[in-house]
């Protein structure tokens, strides 16, 4: 599943990056979470969602601790 179009737009990407910096996260984390949300969007399905969020957040923590 693709990320929302705002992640592909140069102007909105700048805004996203700036906000991520302000909150000490990276835009990849936000993008991964949005993609995940896109998969679940509209379906009403929630089973497995927290685990997938855990996985994405863990990847972020690994990524940032490596940095």
């Amino acid at each position, binding site marked *: *599943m693709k*990320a*929302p*179009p*705002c*992640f*592909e*737009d140069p*102007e*909105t990407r700048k*805004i*996203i990056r700036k*906000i*991520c910096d*302000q*909150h*000490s*996260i990276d835009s990849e*984390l*936000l993008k991964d*979470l*949005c993609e995940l*949300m*896109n*998969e*679940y*969007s*509209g*379906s*009403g*399905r929630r*089973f497995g*969602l*927290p685990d997938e*969020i*855990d996985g994405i*957040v*863990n990847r*972020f*923590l690994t990524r940032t601790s490596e940095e």
Partner: protein
Amino acid sequence: MYLSRLHLHNWRSYADGVFEFNEPTSKKSVVLVGAMNGHGKTSFLVSLYLGLFGRFGLRYCEGFNLADESDISSYRLAIKKYRRNSAIPEEPTIIDVTLTPTIADSNEEEVRVVRRWFFSGKNEPKFGEGFEEVDLYVGGRLQKRGELEKDPLVQAHERIERNLFPAHVAPAFFFDGEQAQKLIENMGESGIKKAVEVMFGTKVIGELAETMSQYLVRARQGVGGKKKSSDRQVELDEKVKKRDELNQRIAKLQADHIKLERDKDEKDRERNNLQEDLARLGGAGNADAATLQGEYVKAEREEGDAEKAVTVAAKSLGIALAMSRLAPSILNRLKAESSLESWEGLKRGTVENKDKVVAAALPEPPENDPLLGNLSSEVREKVRERFLDALSSIYNPQPPDCAKEYLLGHVKGDARSKLLLQLAQVQAAGSDEAKDAARRLRAAREALEDAKVKAERLNNLPQATKDIRARLDMLNTLNQEISRKLGALENEIRKLKSDLHTLNEEIGRIQEELARLGPEQKRIAVAERVTRALEDLQEQLKPTTASRLEEYVTKHFLTIADQRFRNGRIRLPMGGAPEIEMENGTRALLEMLSGFEKRSFGIAFSLALAEITRRRIPLVIDTPLGNADSEYRPRTLQALKDFDLDQVIILTHDEEVTPRLADTIKSSISQTFLVNFEGQGKGSVVQPDAYFGR
């Protein structure tokens, strides 16, 4: 991606219609599907919504709304309405849709959705699970049903959306021209906002924010509630936020500092320039000013002298000129009178001495006259008289150069001779003196002009000097003020940097503390940051997305619209109806435009949404031209043809995209179909490679 196959079985007028579409190329992307009214155009369009998304696509069909999506009975009635009237009860209604990636979409797979609806013997929709079934093929493979406890149709829907696109994106790609026209009437704040959220993905961001909040609640419960770690995280976040604010404040102050320094530099430069000007004008010292004043007085004196010189020169020249004009006549008169005087003198001398002349010529007594002594006394007397008469007449008549009378009788003798001499001199020197006088006059005038220029400059000097000094004083005051502000700014920046340093130390300590926490708490900390970031993001993306939508709608609208809208701009105000802002700044409500102009806006809006989604979904438009005039028709068609998508399917009747009009985009047409309703038995029959008039 393109629609490669659409099979409609027992669907409205279609008994069993199949459209097989060729793979489009970048140059040939348009498909024309011709059908007269009631022959199957709208059925084609609606089949895409319901075939692909089932009840989740119903709200996008004309006459239905969101409530019908969750109301199964409405859905069943809708499908019954769309089922072919003369269908055999045992036969299901089937929509079989295949979307195939183009060569360019090599990372995607073909998706085929086969949806069937079943009916009872009375042609009524079956109840329960027996009513509908759906098969999904991805890359040719039938997707197995997953969790047994879940509604298989919902499962299928999720998969379709995952493999194709969300149902809410479909209205931007599959739409009725008439509905596009109505779009404008139904478009309020919520419509635009929703469209923006959906199409630009901000809806997902909102959903994610909500999900993250739920995740946080759950995660906190998992670690025994909102523990100290979380409090520390909140504290950290607050401090990080404060640090950001401090950084922003420092950045702003530094920017202000730079601006003030530039301002000060500019003023210093101006001050230097003014001081140079002052020195050039005569120096900045009082002694120089006194010298200048002296020069000014001198120039004034020169001016006065020059004026006097001009007066004298003019006077002299005037006398000389007057004399030179009268001199010849006076001279002539005097000469004539002099001649008269000479003549009278000669005459008088001769007459007065005639007796002496006669006595000398005829000496007495005659015996003493050896020549005429022998003449008789009578003859001798006659000779005497003749002499006397001759002497009297030799000065008659008066010579011609003599004056008849004396007009200047008071000037005579030596006085006349002297005057005659002077006059002769005046006559000779007159022109030279006049020339000299003129030269003197010219020189005097030049001298006067110089004196005036000097006087003017000297007159202005004191004011110019005063102005410069006033400006310099002001600049000095301003610079003192700027220096004061700079000092204050520097102090504040220094203090803020010190605060920042302290804050960074505190942040560092909390981060170290948090780093020692368990993975759950770390995840909670990240989730909290994500939640706040998402809130900010939603807020900040709204204006950007709204302005982007305006930009795209304007672009497409102006491509289609009449020249009078040239350089106009569509405005989509939050809470207001769409407007067009004309080149001259006036605004008009779009709902006040003509029917097709509104439809143009609707089409432009749909195209803009399609563009914003950045998805290559086929564009399917039912009757795009409607009541368009002869100029709007080709423009709209061109705009659709030029739209950057893999496939554009236009559903039209014979009066809309006429064969002649179709010829104008001939080079872009990849395929044509003609759908003819051939009675209840056969229903709508699909003829490939056919079109009206061919």
